C-alpha cells in the first residue's frame, strides 16, 4: 500500500439530502480530484448516504492550531452578552 504515500489526501463532504449541509465524513487518497470524487462515491455513499459530494485536497484546508486556543477561543468566555439568553425580556413582550 505504499501508493498512498505518494497520492494526495482528500477530505470528503457529503450532503445526505436536499436542504441539508455537506458534512465532513472522512478522507481518502486519490491521484486527482476526479478520482477522489469517484472513490468518495464508492467508499462513502454505497449505502445511499448522499445526494451530493464535495472533495477538497486536505492540504488546501487552513486549520486553526491547538496552540492558538488561548488567543482564539478564551477571549469569548467572559462575553456572555453575545448570547441572546443574556438578555431578560421585559414582561410585556411575550415573544421575540
Amino acid at each position: 500500500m505504499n501508493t498512498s504515500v505518494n497520492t494526495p489526501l482528500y477530505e470528503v463532504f457529503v450532503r445526505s439530502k436536499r436542504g441539508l449541509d455537506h458534512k465532513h465524513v472522512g478522507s481518502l487518497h486519490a491521484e486527482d480530484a476526479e478520482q477522489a470524487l469517484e472513490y468518495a462515491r464508492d467508499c462513502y455513499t454505497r449505502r445511499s448516504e448522499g445526494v451530493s459530494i464535495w472533495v477538497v485536497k486536505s492540504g488546501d484546508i487552513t486549520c486553526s492550531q491547538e496552540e492558538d486556543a488561548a488567543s482564539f477561543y478564551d477571549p469569548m468566555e467572559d462575553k456572555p452578552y453575545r448570547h441572546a439568553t443574556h438578555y431578560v425580556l421585559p414582561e410585556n413582550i411575550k415573544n421575540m
Partner: protein
Amino acid sequence: MSNTESTTRENTLEYSIGLGDDSLMLGQRLAEWCRNAPLLEEDLAISNVALDFIGRANMFYEYAVELAKVTGGVFKNQSVDDIAYLRDSREYLNLLIFEMPIGDFAYTMTRQLIVDLFNVDYFTALSASSDSRLAAIAAKTLKESKYHLRRSHEWALRLGDGTEESHTRMQNAVNELWGYTPELFEMSETELALLPAGISVDRAALFDTWEARVSGILNEATLDHPPGDWQVTGGRAGVHTEYHGHLLSEMQFLQRAYPGLAW
C-alpha cells in the same frame, strides 16, 4: 399455449441464462480483487463493481427460474443458486472474455473498458426490449454500466498515458484481449430467433459504434489498435477456455461442500 409462444419462452429462458452467465463470470473475476487491489479505495470501488455484476446475474437467473416453471426442461424446479453454482463448465453459456483471469490491474481495467463500452450500448438497446422484464433489468443495469465505464475510461487514460511500465502493461492487455472481442458481436441461434419479436438485441449492429469509441479511447490513451488478426469464440455453445474450470471450482466450492447453503 401456441407453439410459437412456448418456443419464444424457451429461447428467452436460454437468453436470460446466457446474459446471467456473462455477468456472473465477470462478477466472480472482479471479486478476486477484493483485498488485493492496488490501493484501499480501489479495493472498495472494484468490489462494488463486482457486486453490480453478481446482482445483475441474480436478476437474469430469477427471471429464468420463473420461465422454467412454465417451460419445464433442465431448469424446472431449480433455484437461482442451483443455476449459478451447480452446473458443469459445458452448461455455462458465457462469452469467453468474461471468464478470462484477472491478470494484472491493467488487464482487468482493459477488459472493463472493452466490456463497459459494449454494455452501455447493449443495455440501452435491451431496455427497449419488447420483453418488459428484460427491459426493466436492462434499465437498472444501464445506470451501473455508465458508472463502470466512467471508471474504466479514466483508468485506461491514466495507465495507457502513464509511465512506461503502465503503458506497456496496457498495450499487452489490449493485444491479449482483442481476439476475444469479436464474440461480443456474434449472434447465437437463440438470440437470432428472438430478434424479429424485438426481445433480444442485435449485437452485430452495435459493432461500428463500439469500434469507433474504443479506437478513440485507445488513441487518447496513446495505445495502438491491435491488428485483429485472430479471434476465439465458443462460449455461447458452452465451449470454454482452460480457465473456466478453475473459476468454477472456486466459485462453486461452498454450494458443493454445503449443498443448499443459503444466506
